[in-house]
């Protein structure tokens, strides 16, 4: 516009918006904003669920890469040597061998018991891979030389009042209390509860840990592991780490956290995503109908005006263009308002997080998803605005002018 020429479509659109009905304008923008919110809200929550679930899998269950026994074998043999070798692979920042066995844990105070998988690790190694040591809510984490001590999850420890428990528990175990553990081989041992951890994950917080040293004294498990967790530099690099480990000549099953976790939440996420797609589709239909109706009513009310403009020599394209610009304006305002509302919701939900079985969910805004929804919204809106505008702008001048 450097030469001072001014596009008539913009000229008309600006004035129609400025001098048009404020209430209708605000309502339309609000509806489009809500459409944007609806299109993205569910995926925001799903994003939060996925993020926390992934983080928990990595931090407490699988590390970045999990090594498991070969097909048809119960144990990884020579695990001590394997752990030492794995530590030397570039990109590995931590390695910890786990040995898990079924055991029945009984609260000595009240006789309540739970049968669980009890896992043994080397506490020093474990802190290089998992984050239990940062999640101790009472007492202390295990130390290398500990015997006769046990670390249990807060949900397993439970409450004296059973009604407060989320899952079956030992009915209120505290640090310093004694529990007895009955092993599969018939051995029964008494342990002092050294620490209680809380990660917010239901499965995780109902597990229990002892040191390798303690386990080895009960069972002949030296140099064996049921799994080895490996931590690398980042979750995204897990795939590369897996191949580095396999290339190193490890014959056991090597799987990334992602591959391990897929089965459990994968189906749920797939269903969520389907719901989300359906919702997005419905929202787009709603958006296009709203824009169509708004433009349609707008244009029907202005048939005479459009006839006048054409009569005095305003080109059809300029008239249609002015309505499309108005639609663009409505959509842009709606999208901005929608993103603000989404951020507002995200903020509120960060301060007051939603409680899910795996813990507190803080929403994760997926900007690429929002971008896609915005592009779709603009596309359907422009089409919905274009159709009535084009139809009326193509009417015979005298018919349109008759109103």
């Amino acid at each position: 516009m450097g030469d001072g020429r001014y596009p008539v479509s913009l000229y008309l659109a600006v004035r129609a918006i400025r001098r048009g009905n404020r209430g209708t304008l605000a309502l339309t923008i609000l509806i489009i904003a809500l459409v944007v919110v609806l299109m993205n809200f569910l995926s925001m929550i799903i994003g939060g669920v996925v993020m926390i679930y992934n983080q928990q899998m990595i931090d407490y269950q699988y590390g970045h890469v999990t090594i498991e026994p070969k097909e048809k074998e119960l144990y990884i043999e020579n695990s001590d040597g394997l752990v030492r070798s794995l530590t030397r692979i570039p990109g590995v920042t931590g390695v910890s061998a786990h040995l898990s066995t079924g055991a029945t844990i009984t609260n000595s105070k009240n006789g309540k018991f739970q049968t669980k998988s009890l896992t043994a690790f080397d506490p020093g190694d474990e802190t290089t891979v998992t984050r239990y040591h940062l999640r101790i809510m009472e007492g202390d984490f295990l130390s290398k030389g500990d015997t006769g001590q046990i670390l249990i999850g807060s949900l397993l420890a439970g409450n004296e009042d059973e009604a407060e428990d989320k899952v079956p528990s030992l009915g209120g175990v505290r640090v310093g209390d004694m529990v007895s553990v009955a092993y599969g081989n018939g051995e029964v041992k008494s342990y002092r509860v050294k620490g209680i951890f809380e990660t917010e994950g239901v499965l995780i917080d109902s597990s229990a840990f002892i040191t390798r040293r303690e386990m080895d004294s009960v069972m002949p498990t030296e140099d064996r592991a049921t799994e080895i967790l490996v931590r690398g530099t980042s979750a995204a690099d897990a795939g590369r780490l897996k191949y580095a480990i396999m290339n190193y000549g490890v014959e056991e099953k090597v799987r990334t956290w992602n591959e391990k976790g897929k089965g459990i939440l994968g189906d749920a996420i797939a269903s969520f995503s389907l719901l989300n797609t359906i919702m997005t589709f419905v929202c787009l239909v709603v958006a296009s109908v709203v824009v169509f109706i708004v433009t349609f009513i707008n244009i029907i009310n202005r048939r005479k005006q459009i006839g006048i403009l054409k009569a005095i020599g305003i080109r059809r394209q300029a008239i249609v263009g002015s309505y499309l610009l108005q639609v663009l304006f409505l959509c842009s305002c709606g999208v901005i308002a929608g993103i603000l509302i989404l951020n507002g919701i995200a903020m509120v939900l960060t301060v007051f997080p939603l409680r899910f079985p795996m813990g507190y969910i803080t929403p994760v805004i997926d900007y690429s998803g929002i971008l896609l929804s915005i592009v779709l919204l603009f596309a359907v809106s422009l089409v919905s605005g274009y159709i009535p505008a084009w139809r009326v702008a193509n009417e015979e001048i005298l018919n349109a002018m008759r109103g």
Partner: protein
Amino acid sequence: MIEGSGIKKVYRLGLVEVAALKGVTIRIDRGEFVGIMGPSGSGKSTLLHQLGLLDTPTGGKIYIDGMDVSGLDDEERTRFRLKHLGYVFQDYALVSELNVLENVAIPAIMQGKPLAGCYASAASVLGKVGLSDRLSHLVYELSGGEQQRVSIARALVNSPSIVFADEPCANLDTENSRIVLELFRSLNRDLGQTIVMVSHEAWHREYFDRIIFIRDGLLDEDRLRQENPACTI
């Protein structure tokens, strides 16, 4: 300047055909202020719409400034109307979302002239119709007579060769009608503006240079000879 030969217009309403113009041949010269008169339903507006390229005749030819405009396509007709023709309608036909100045400026803006220049020419024609003090008013803040003068200013802003007016005084009282007619007369006398105006008010006749009478979609030749003895069409 305008030559119409054998202009026909047939409206089709389902199976019924209404012949609004049955072959009208006329000629209007540059600088004339011509009135089109006749009974209601005789085809005055229809004739004006054909001459003003607001409609396409079913038959006949129209030449404006020697150019055959009957063959123009929609796009070309729009451009032609913008550049060469001005319109004044009975109900003012102003754009409610534009203020007075903008209403008048819009045909100039559509021509692609710089905005400042468009506003300057709009303000200048608004001065000619006596509305210099109303530039930023919205249309509904004006009286009918004032609105009609805005619409006259809009018709003039692109300096058209012909201004068409379809009963511009029908919604106005005598005083405002007189203002509009005086305005037309001075535009015609002082600037040589060609004006074609439809009217059915007998007292408007004193303003016209010449009157074309229409009856039942045809020229009313008897009336014509009677009223314009000097003229032969």
